[in-house]
């Protein structure tokens, strides 16, 4: 990757010698992995529902599998976006639907009961991973503690009252003027300005 990045540099521009720690944490990378997994599974469910229902002994439920495929793709896109925490929680909800559906395939007379059991175990494992990753992302991005009060940061060394209109001496450029009034407007009463904190 570094080699490719350096190849695309303009001549004379700085090139990477070695890379340092990334802003992407391990939980972010895990979320991306789960997002790509979701996209892959969703595509398989959309494009090959018959193979999936046959393997699980759930023939006749192809439309449901296709719908789950669309759901997986939506969750995958969200998990790959900056809203990945929401994407992962939507995956957890989807995992719940998958578990409920697979439980239906665990009946005694299903000749593919073993496959369904393996799929159920896999979904339960992925559910744990989804939930753990989503929870760790929540901990990482949540605003904690009381918000600070910046009420003493006016930015006016001479104080707010002395600063109102202090730059009216600016010679405004002609290209930034609004249309002038045809007749002078009546002046409005001054509002009660909030007191600086």
């Amino acid at each position: 990757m570094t080699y490719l990045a350096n190849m695309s540099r303009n001549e004379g521009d700085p090139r990477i010698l070695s890379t340092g720690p990334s802003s992407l944490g391990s939980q972010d990378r895990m979320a991306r992995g789960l997002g790509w997994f979701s996209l892959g599974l969703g595509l398989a469910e959309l494009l090959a529902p018959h193979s999936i229902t046959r393997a699980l002994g759930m023939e006749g439920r192809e439309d449901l599998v296709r719908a789950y495929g669309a759901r997986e793709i939506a969750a995958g896109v969200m998990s790959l976006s900056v809203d990945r925490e929401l994407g992962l929680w939507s995956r957890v909800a989807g995992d719940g639907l998958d578990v409920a559906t697979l439980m239906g395939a665990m009946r005694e007379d299903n000749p593919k009961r073993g496959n369904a059991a393996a799929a159920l175990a896999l979904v339960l494992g992925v559910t744990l991973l989804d939930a753990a990753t989503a929870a760790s992302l929540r901990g990482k991005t949540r605003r904690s503690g009381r918000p600070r009060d910046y009420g003493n940061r006016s930015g006016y060394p001479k104080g707010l009252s002395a600063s109102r209109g202090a730059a009216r001496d600016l010679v405004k450029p002609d290209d930034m003027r609004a249309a002038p009034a045809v007749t002078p407007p009546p002046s409005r009463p001054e509002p009660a300005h909030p007191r600086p904190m």
Partner: protein
Amino acid sequence: MKALVWHGKEDIRCDSVTDPEIQDSRDAIVKITSCAICGSDLHLFHNFIPAMMPGDIVGHEMMGEVVEVGRGVNGKLRVGERVVVPFTIFCGECEQCRRGNYSVCETTNRNKAMADKVFGHATAGLFGYTHLTGGYPGGQAQYLRVPYADTTHIKVPDSLSDEQALFLGDILPTGWQAAVQCDIQPTDTVAIWGCGPVGQMAIRSAVLLGARQVVAIDCLPERLSMARAGGAITIDFEEESVVERLNELTGGKGPDKCIDAIGMESHVGLSQPDTIYDRAKQMMMLESDRPHVLREMIYVCRPAGVISIPGVYSGLVDKIPMGVAMNKGLTFRMGQTHVNRWTDDLVRRIEEGQIDPSFVITHTARLEDGPEMYNVFRDKRDSCVKVVLKP
């Protein structure tokens, strides 16, 4: 040297890279003493700005000491001088520069052919930004090559600290231009969406320029408290209707001037349902920007008012009520900031004590901590408003 390098979506790393070199006689090399993370850096961080490439050094708010100059600089800049580097690179000679439109300089974009195809006509080269604006290495680094350095600099008087001068390179003139292009009158109500760093500068600029009342809109308590300190009446859009409150404050007429200091990444929430629609479209790559603020400004602005847009938009927006804008006769003014058009005047105002831009700094960290500070700034952790990095 060390530099913050973009490797992909949300992947910024503090890398070791080769030192920059003089490439042209008008170049200078600046040793960076302070740099900052800007709100528009977050658009790059989220990969919403097209044509970034892995290996790009980010950062466009920086200052430092000149350590080398090319022969063509002709004494306009000398080794040892302290300078802020404006984020817009300009030649000072082309027709646009002569008009003061430095951010659309016709000379400095070294990827002009690509920019011509995408924008219709190329705009100026910018530091640490997309390859559509030249792909120049940015200033979140220990050293920076400054092209067209004889014009692209702001000399810093000894009386000003780094913290007072640093924001002359972007957010102060950006907030200032946003207010100036509103042509504020003493009778005006100016509404400002967004109390981030540019919004805070716009609030203070509108107050200094003599607006009757300034109204600031956000949902973060710490930012609203900073806005109130600057003299604004505040609206928390999670708590009350922006449109109703603005109409109440203006006798039902709407604000005369509206400033969008948010841009393409409006806060997504149930209180603004259109943002959920935009976010879904953005995820599916059916829309590049979330223009909630633009829609709200057009709706609430007083007829014949001015809409000023310093917030960054990257591409395509959807469901903009153009019919409302047309029928209300609104004036739109927008663009990247013509930084050096304003900075001589702003340096004087800082020296005279009209404004001290350092009020906005809430976090200072080492350059090596930059990748994590991107996360802190993005997530607004620890009431973060503005991060300054010390290489």
